[in-house]
């Protein structure tokens, strides 16, 4: 690590991201690739592993004091799981401090509804990891 980069890190708190696999979906290639890319970009990354309930995810997010939660859903359960996580975030007073983003197999038609409910962004198949890094850097609270 270069000296200048190290200095920046000491002055500025690193962005902390929780990458989570909610529900019963076992497809974790994307979640793991993104977790690693975010780590390589200089974020602190916590990856939950599979089968996380919305309660577990928000609890971990609180304990780990994260700035961002990223959910990866490929099983079609996004319209159930995102609202549950958003409701728990509200209940735990996290909504103003934590950015919720998501990715996976999510039809275009569903994206406006999820965003209106409070999901900051949905990243579909083929998204370069660099765009996710840029989005988080620009929007993390």
């Amino acid at each position, binding site marked *: 690590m270069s000296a200048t980069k190290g200095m920046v890190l000491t002055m500025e708190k690193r962005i902390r991201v929780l990458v989570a696999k909610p529900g*019963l979906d076992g497809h974790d290639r994307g979640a793991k690739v993104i977790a*690693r890319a975010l780590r390589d970009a200089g974020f602190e990354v916590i990856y939950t592993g599979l089968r996380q309930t919305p309660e577990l995810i928000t609890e971990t997010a609180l304990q780990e004091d994260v700035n961002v939660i990223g959910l990866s859903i490929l099983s*079609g359960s*996004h319209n159930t799981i995102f609202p549950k996580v958003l409701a728990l975030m509200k209940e735990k007073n996290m909504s103003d401090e934590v950015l919720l983003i998501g990715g996976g197999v999510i*039809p275009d038609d569903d994206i406006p509804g999820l965003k209106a409910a409070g999901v900051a962004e949905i990243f579909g198949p083929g998204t370069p990891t660099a765009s996710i890094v840029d989005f988080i850097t620009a929007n993390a609270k």
Partner: protein
Amino acid sequence: MANESLEAKMVAYNAKIEKSLVKNPERNNLAHNRLYTPLDTEELDYESDLGFPGEYPYTRGVQPTMYRSRFWTMRQYAGFSSAEESNKRYKYLLAQGQTGLSCAFDLPTQIGYDSDNAISDGEVGKVGVAIDSLADMEILFDGIDLGKVSTSMTINAPATVLLAMYIAVAEKQGVATENLKGTIQNDILKEYSARGTYIFPPKPSMRLITNIFEYCSKNVPQWNTISISGYHIREAGATAVQEIAFTIADGIAYVEAAIKAGLNVDDFAKRLSFFWDVHNNVLEEVCKLRASRRVWAKIMKERFGAQSPNSMMLRVHMQTAGSTLTAQQPENNIVRVALQTAAAVLGGTQSLHTNSKDEALALPTEDAVRVALRTQQIVAYESGLADVVDPLAGSYYIEALTNQIEQECWDYIEKIDDLGGAVAAIEKGYIQREIQESAYKWQMEVESKQRIIVGVNQFQIEEKPSEGLLRVDESVGEMQKAKLVQLRATRDNATLTAKLTALEEAARDEHKNLMPFILDAVNAYGTIGEICGVLRKVFGEYEAHISL
């Protein structure tokens, strides 16, 4: 040496090229040599390395005439929403000329939870059909003669339960179990390393698998008791070599477990089958198939002392690679699938599922599935690729690459043996880390444009959001819950409780085969959640190794 002059000419050719490369450099990221010549196949011995199709070591295929007698089984993986909806899709596919069924179950079913369990919320009927009890299974196969059709079921941790349900439906139809044909995936090791629908820890899981081997060898002799799967390992990011190496290592673990349980290798090995992915690199995929057959044949003969030729044949179902489908310009996926189909056929598959163009976005519509099935039919009837057995054999490149893939596969198998076998390698996280490394490398190659994906990182266009995708009716969850309420109110609960107690006792005795007990519980209309609940209580649950 006879090839001395050829060697000299090869040196001259390369020297000549070096000069022109300064002006016209070759593309980056080319995996194989520029040119293959007889020098690359000098060591090849026709009789011992290739032989004849239907003969050891089966490099050229497992049947003597391959597709000249009968095409591969065209088997589209399908299932969504309720048993009623999926039954309609199966009947449609059979009417379109599909020759075998392949059932996709939803995640709660695959992980042994009922539809009314809180953890199932939002998942019921989504990635496959929801099956809670025998009552659903009766509807799923209503009007389909199980004595005539062969059925593949993608079910792993609760494979005993779904197989028992299938047997129960067949018995109700009056079909003898000896006549049942089909496959259960039943491959738990790749669930730990790549697919994620595990329930129990490795030891009791391996017991359930060997229980099935034993039960079927006596009662359902034509059933393929396991489909040892590389598909999901590849989809998780593995290379072609890693796909076959990790899967064959899993295969070795299953054979060892069955032998340890007291079974004779030739009694169960002929019912072992494999499942490969078929990816974009057409000729590498052909060589992967050929190499995998040779490796497995040698393992069964030399390592396990199998005597029957049927025990040495690697029979394989394949599916075109879902991870190669793009959400961008989805029509292009039809071309990808056609090339992958060609590779599967040139490599000598026994069965094939072709993906539909819209599957990077959702489950496929009926129209998209028809095009995917037609792709297989066009390759079969119009392309000529199926007319000659192993038509690429003898190509310098094909034989050299087959040898190379075989060698790299042996290197991995040796490494996994050193770690204590596939189970230990998974518990140590070795296989998962290898797959993750490859997945990350692939992604970085795409992002740096060392690897071009048409429509994704080159040749992009402005696109409108996709229309006309299949949507699973969200009401299926409520419908399944209502069915469960009715089932629990109308079945004979006292009988079921007795059957579940008997299952629990049997589960505690590791010498008992659990299949008959599970069959009893299924016939008493026990639900998948209740039956797996008993086993969860006795066996506990697997805790995954998480690494990044």
